[in-house]
């Protein structure tokens, strides 16, 4: 049964419509990411769920109750902010226990819950410290514990990893996901980092210009993008203009090479999307092939990134680095193999 429902949600600031007809249904215990570039409206949606912004239109229900007009302090929602937002005048333990104290919980219950939460985030000895005495990663863990302590119905995470360095970010995102799974709390996570969204989410909502372009599992979003924007925003994508030779068989010509996609296409021109990692060097039996000239080669450690001229179009290819194979050189003319099923035909 749907736990959180957002239906026909709209938000305008003056004449600027930042969220347009946004719909989402979230199951209990699900981890949903709102992914999109800056200004796409993802944070505004989150802030409307939290109650910090009132919708211009639409409804938000949690566990069947309409909370659209409810004040934020009456929604029982936990929120973690990008800037940690720990109360500087309170110790870690006081921060974590703040929500329970506001609710009027007995001191013994608060102390027990604070100890439980600090153990959960792996900082059991830090209760007496002040926020300024903690690292960024520790502060964000405390912020998570503080949000979870009052047992909220929904956890909202507003780019909680953006202010952290890369290594901490990766370890903390795994921790957040593990804690979320352990507690089974319904979570909405806002991020502009596709890797975070892909690695953490049960489902992703890709937002563009205030609209949810696609809602799907990370696998679907990456491998079966519904729109040109999703295809371009999530992962690296080569977009190639192809001339359709035979619409029925999906025979197209790209930069002087012929591909048969094996599915019906519209006539005229289509745009093909090819992920760089879907292409392999050398012709392979049963695979379609493209021919091009290497113009750039970047050695990235585990991956070698090639850029090729394919007639008048450009193509990026990622090859896994192996000690056995000799890397190609700039100027080499090479053949690339690809499974026609991996080629995306991109719509609007």
């Amino acid at each position, binding site marked *: 049964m749907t736990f959180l429902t957002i239906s026909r949600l709209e938000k305008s600031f003056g004449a600027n419509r930042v969220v347009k007809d946004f719909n989402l249904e979230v199951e209990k215990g699900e981890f949903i990411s709102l992914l999109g570039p800056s200004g796409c409206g993802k944070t505004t949606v989150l802030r409307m769920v939290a109650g910090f912004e009132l919708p211009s239109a639409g409804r938000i229900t949690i566990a069947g109750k309409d909370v659209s007009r409810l004040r934020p302090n009456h929604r029982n929602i936990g929120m973690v*902010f990008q800037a940690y937002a720990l109360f500087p005048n309170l110790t870690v333990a006081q921060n974590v226990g*703040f929500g329970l104290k506001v609710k009027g919980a007995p001191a013994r219950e608060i102390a027990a819950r604070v100890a439980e939460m600090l153990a959960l985030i792996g900082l059991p000895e830090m209760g007496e410290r002040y926020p300024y005495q903690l690292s960024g990663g520790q502060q964000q863990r405390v912020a998570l514990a503080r949000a979870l302590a009052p047992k909220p119905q929904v956890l909202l995470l507003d780019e909680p990893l953006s202010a952290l360095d890369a290594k901490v970010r990766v370890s903390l995102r795994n921790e957040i996901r593990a804690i979320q799974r352990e507690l089974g709390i319904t979570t909405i996570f806002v991020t502009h980092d596709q890797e975070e969204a892909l690695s953490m989410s049960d489902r992703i909502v890709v937002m563009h210009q205030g609209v949810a372009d696609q809602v799907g599992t990370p696998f679907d979003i990456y491998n079966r993008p519904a729109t040109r924007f999703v295809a371009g925003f999530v992962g690296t994508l080569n977009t190639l203009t192809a001339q359709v030779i035979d619409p029925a068989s999906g025979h197209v010509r790209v930069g002087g090479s012929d591909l048969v996609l094996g599915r019906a296409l519209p006539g005229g021109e289509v745009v093909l999307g090819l992920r760089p990692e879907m292409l392999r060097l050398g012709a392979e039996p049963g695979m379609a092939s493209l021919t091009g000239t290497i113009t750039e080669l970047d050695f990235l450690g585990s991956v070698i990134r090639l850029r090729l001229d394919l007639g008048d179009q450009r193509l990026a290819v990622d090859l896994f680095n192996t000690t056995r194979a000799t890397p190609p050189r700039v100027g080499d003319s090479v053949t690339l193999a690809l499974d026609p099923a991996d080629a995306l035909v991109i719509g609007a």
Partner: protein
Amino acid sequence: MTRAASWAILLLGLTYFILPLLGMIEFSLSMRRGEYSFDAYVAVLGDPQFRQTFSYSVMMALLTIVFGMLLVVPTAFWVRLKLPHLRPVIEFITLLPLVIPAIVVVFGYIRLYNTSSWLPLTGSVLGTNLLLMFGYATLSLPYMYRAVDTGLRTIDVTTLTEAAQSLGAGWITILGRIILPNVLVAVLSGAFVTFAIVMGEFTMAALLNRPAFGPYLQLMGANKAYEPFALATIAFIITWACMGLIQLVTRFTKHDKAAR
């Protein structure tokens, strides 16, 4: 600039400020002919009128501070949180007491709140005291507002407020447990300035005919030789004690080191 020149400028500055103070203190100790004594201080501190006016002004200062805090902290908080576009207007209003003389303000009060007006505050002692406290709060508004606003600038008011709201806190809890403790040093510095202003204020207290310390200072200055200097020294010590307290509070506020 050479080291010697820097020292020379510093000494010149110190001389400019300290010499008159030393002269004042020296004179206040010269009541007894031919030797230094605290006779002037003993005379002042033994004067019942001193004790009465001093305690009246201290009480008024404390009430003004409480009223100023209740007025300014929520206002500055709300302006920062919800009405940032109104900041220039509010700042302009808070600066008005610097350009409108106290005598104009108090005459306005007397005209508006005299015994034949719709709100005859000057008709009773309590009402007049209340009016005087409002007047003091107005005079200290530029300092109090600026101090609190500067304090609020050092914290992320919006995010802290939203974090507290998401944890179930209402406005009073947010102001009392989150915002005020984080701007306490700023509020106290505004409070100490307010205290100093109230302790020395003459015009309003004299025209409202209240037994405050300012008019007493003026009375002593007009009638005595040494006692006014002892009083000025006492007032000076009170001011410096206030400034010292600000420093102490700042030093002992643990969380003040917080990265904000």
